[in-house]
C-alpha cells in the first residue's frame, strides 16, 4: 500500500491531502479505486484536476506492460545455461542450471546436497570464470573443501586463489538476515561483488529450509509469508540480474510414507526444477560410498521421474593425463 504524500505528483498539495484524508482516502490504491466524480465534489476540487492526479499516480506505480516480441528478444540474449560440471546432472537438468530460474536440490542428511553445491560453485568459478554467491545457513561450508576440489582441477596456486576469490560466501543463520542479504545484493551488492572479476552468474543458498522450516507449522502465518518473501527476492534477483539460483531443501515423509521435499505444498510451486538426491542402495554400490542417485521430480523441460546416478567425487577426481584424455578415478579413496 503506497500512502499518499504531498508532492508525490503535481497538484497534490497539503490542503487536497487533508480533504482526501477526511474522505477516507489515504493510499494511492484508495484514490485509484474510488469514484472520481463524487470525490471531486466532496473535496471541492475540479474533476479534471483530480482525474489528472489519478492518471499520473497510476502511471507512476503500475507495472508497465512489455510486448511479447521484446520480451522474447531480451530473454534470448540474456539467458544462459550453466553446466554443473557433472555430465549426469547436466543431462537431468537439460544441459545445466538456467539463469533466471530457481533450481532446488532436496535430500536427506548425507545425501550430498552441499557437496553438489560446492562442486557447482567450484566449476563455475574455475571453469566458467564467473563469480558465485554462496549463502551458507548451516555452517557446512569449509574453504578447505573448496580448495581440495580446486586442487584437483589445477595445481597452479595462483589460479586456485583466483577461483576461490570468485566465490563470495555469506554466513547467516536466520531468515531476516537472509532477506537483508538478498535485498542488499539486489540493490547494488551484486555489482560490487562483480568488480573483482567475472559477473555473478549463480546464487547458491544452502540451505533455504534450515532458516524457514523452524518458522512453519502451528497457526501463525508469518512463517509462510516470510517463505514467500524469500522466494520472491530470489526470483526477482534471478530474473533481473540473469543469475541461476540453486537452493537446497531437506526431506520429509508424505502421508503414504514416501520421501518428499520439505517446506510443503506452497514452496513446491516456487522452484522451476526440483531434484531429489538419495544414496544408492544397490549391493554394487557398497564399494562406492560416494555414489548418489538424482531423481527429477519437477521440470518444465523434461519428463519427470527420470533418474541419473553420479559420483560425488566427480568434482575432485584426479585430473586428465598429459595427453588431454580424461581419466575417471576407478578406485575409491
Amino acid at each position: 500500500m503506497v500512502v499518499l504524500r504531498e508532492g508525490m505528483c503535481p497538484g497534490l498539495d497539503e490542503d487536497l491531502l487533508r480533504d482526501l484524508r477526511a474522505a477516507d482516502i489515504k493510499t494511492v490504491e484508495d484514490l485509484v479505486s474510488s469514484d472520481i466524480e463524487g470525490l471531486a465534489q466532496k473535496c471541492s476540487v475540479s474533476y479534471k484536476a483530480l482525474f489528472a492526479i489519478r492518471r499520473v499516480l497510476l502511471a507512476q506505480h503500475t507495472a508497465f506492460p512489455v510486448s511479447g516480441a521484446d520480451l522474447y528478444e531480451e530473454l534470448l540474449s540474456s539467458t544462459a545455461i550453466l553446466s554443473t560440471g557433472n555430465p549426469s546432472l547436466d543431462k537431468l537438468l537439460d544441459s545445466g542450471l538456467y539463469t533466471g530460474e530457481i533450481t532446488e536440490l532436496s535430500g536427506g542428511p548425507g545425501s550430498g546436497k552441499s557437496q553438489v553445491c560446492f562442486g557447482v560453485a567450484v566449476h563455475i568459478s574455475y571453469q566458467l570464470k564467473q563469480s558465485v554467491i554462496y549463502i551458507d545457513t548451516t555452517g557446512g561450508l569449509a574453504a578447505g573443501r573448496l580448495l581440495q576440489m580446486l586442487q584437483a582441477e589445477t595445481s597452479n596456486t595462483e589460479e586456485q586463489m583466483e577461483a576461490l576469490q570468485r566465490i563470495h560466501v555469506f554466513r547467516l543463520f536466520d531468515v531476516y538476515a537472509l532477506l537483508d542479504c538478498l535485498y542488499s545484493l539486489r540493490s547494488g551488492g551484486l555489482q560490487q561483488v562483480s568488480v573483482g572479476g567475472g559477473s555473478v552468474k549463480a546464487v547458491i543458498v544452502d540451505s533455504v529450509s534450515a532458516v524457514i522450516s523452524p518458522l512453519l507449522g502451528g497457526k501463525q502465518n508469518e512463517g509462510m509469508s516470510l517463505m514467500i518473501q524469500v522466494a520472491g527476492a530470489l526470483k526477482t534477483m534471478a530474473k533481473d540480474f540473469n543469475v541461476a539460483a540453486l537452493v537446497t531443501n531437506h526431506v520429509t515423509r508424505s502421508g503414504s510414507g514416501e520421501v518428499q521435499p520439505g517446506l510443503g505444498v506452497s514452496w513446491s510451486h516456487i522452484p522451476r526444477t526440483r531434484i531429489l538426491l538419495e544414496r544408492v542402495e544397490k549391493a554394487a554400490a557398497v564399494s562406492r560410498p560416494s555414489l548418489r542417485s538424482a531423481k527429477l521430480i519437477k521440470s518444465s523441460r523434461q519428463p519427470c521421474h527420470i533418474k541419473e546416478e553420479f559420483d560425488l567425487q566427480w568434482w575432485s577426481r584426479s585430473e586428465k593425463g598429459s595427453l588431454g584424455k580424461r581419466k575417471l578415478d576407478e578406485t575409491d579413496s
Partner: protein
Amino acid sequence: EAAGGLEVDVVFVDTDYSLDMLHLVSILDSKLTLLAGADEAALRSCLSRLLFVHCYSSSQLLLTLHFLETTLSSRPALALILIDSISAFYWVDRCEGGASYTKQEEKLSRCAELLGRLLRDYRITVFATCHAIRRPGVPSSSSDSERSYLCRSWQRLVTHRLLCSRQEPGDNMAAEGGHDQEQRRQQIFTVHCTTSSSRVKASWSSSFCVTEAGFSE
C-alpha cells in the same frame, strides 16, 4: 490466422515469474510450422499480440488492473487476460492483514471486484491459475485441496473451475523391468472442470499429456 488462430490480443499478468517464454515460443513455433509453414514474420506478429506485465504485490496488481482498463479501451482486439497466479500473494497478504480476515482479503477482493467490472464492461475472458495449498493447523485430507481458499469476491467471480491433477505413474510400465533408459513414461494429467453459472451446473473431465509441442490427448 492461416494457422487457425483467433488473432486476439492477450495480456499475461505474471505474479511469480512463472512464464517460461522460451518454451512458449518453441510451442508456438512448432504449431506455426506445422500449420502454416515456417515463417519468422508470423511468429513475430503473434508475439507482438502478447502483452506481458509483472506484479510484485497485490497492491501493484490492483493498480495494474486499473491501468489495464485504459489499455482495454484503446486496444479493441484485447479479449483475454491471463493471470498466473492469483494466489501468489495469499500468504503475504494474510500476514500483513494482521488478525482481521477482512483486512487480509481486502486487496484481493478489490482486484476481484475490478475484474468483475472489466468482464462485464469489456466482454473479455479471464483465466487465472491458483496454487493448491495446505493450511497450517488443518489436518490434511484429500478434500482440502478442492476447496477454494481465496476471498469470497473471487469465488463469486469464478464461473468455471478446472482442477488439474497429476496421475501418479502407475504399474502400467511394470513390463519394462529395471531398464532405466526406458523411463520416458508419459506423464498424464487430468483436468476436472466444474461450471457454476446460475442456470447450469455441469462437470466433465479430460486427460492430456504435455509434449514438446504443447498438449496432446
